[in-house]
């Protein structure tokens, strides 16, 4: 994924571990929320914690798949992964408990610039993957596909899954 390419590139340049760089980038992105007037919420914290805890067990399950994958299976997983990621992004931003650090950058820029979600998301992903690649990160076709397509998936889904604000909400 594009942000992982950036983390990888920075890690190679600085000698810091991938995890440390990922956390540092999250901190920088969260700092960028201040001028964008984004506020973290329960969803911001849940995004980091829940996904962090779930990825390892899911990876263990997927380790049961044959290795290496056939090209068709690999393409299928990429398509499935990008599609699910777009759906999940729209669902959790739409729940309005606060976006994850990187998605908050998108929602903040959309709110501040008035540009479309699709354009802003695609721009962020392309800039991030290009910066990561220039710094020495590894970007494959799947990364490029993600960067170019994710905005077009999230853009139409977000309004569909955004729960309306209510005056009696607690």
């Amino acid at each position, binding site marked *: 994924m594009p942000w992982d390419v950036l983390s990888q590139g920075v890690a190679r340049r600085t000698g810091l571990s991938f995890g440390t760089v990922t956390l540092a980038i999250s901190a920088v992105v969260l700092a960028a929320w201040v001028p964008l007037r984004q506020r973290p919420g329960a969803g911001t914290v849940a995004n980091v914690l829940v996904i962090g805890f779930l990825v390892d067990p899911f990876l263990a399950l997927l380790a049961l798949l044959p290795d290496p994958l056939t090209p068709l299976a690999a393409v299928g*997983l990429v398509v499935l992964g990008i599609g*699910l990621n777009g759906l999940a992004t729209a669902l959790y931003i739409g729940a309005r408990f606060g976006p994850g650090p990187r998605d908050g950058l998108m929602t903040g820029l959309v709110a501040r610039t008035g540009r479309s979600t699709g354009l802003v998301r695609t721009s962020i992903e392309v800039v991030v993957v290009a910066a990561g690649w220039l710094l020495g990160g590894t970007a494959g076709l799947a990364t490029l596909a993600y960067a170019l397509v994710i905005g077009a998936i999230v853009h139409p889904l977000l309004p569909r899954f955004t729960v309306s604000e209510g005056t*009696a909400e*607690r």
Partner: protein
Amino acid sequence: MTVADRLADVGPAIEARGSRRLGRRTVQLAIALVLYAVSVTVLVRS
């Protein structure tokens, strides 16, 4: 019916609606996080 009577009727309805909305948001967030984790895993594995 006085304004106070009307508010007495409307208040609980609005509260119930707000609670349902909060419930939907919570379920939606839970589903989203699981799907997000699955998608990240699938993309890493591919």
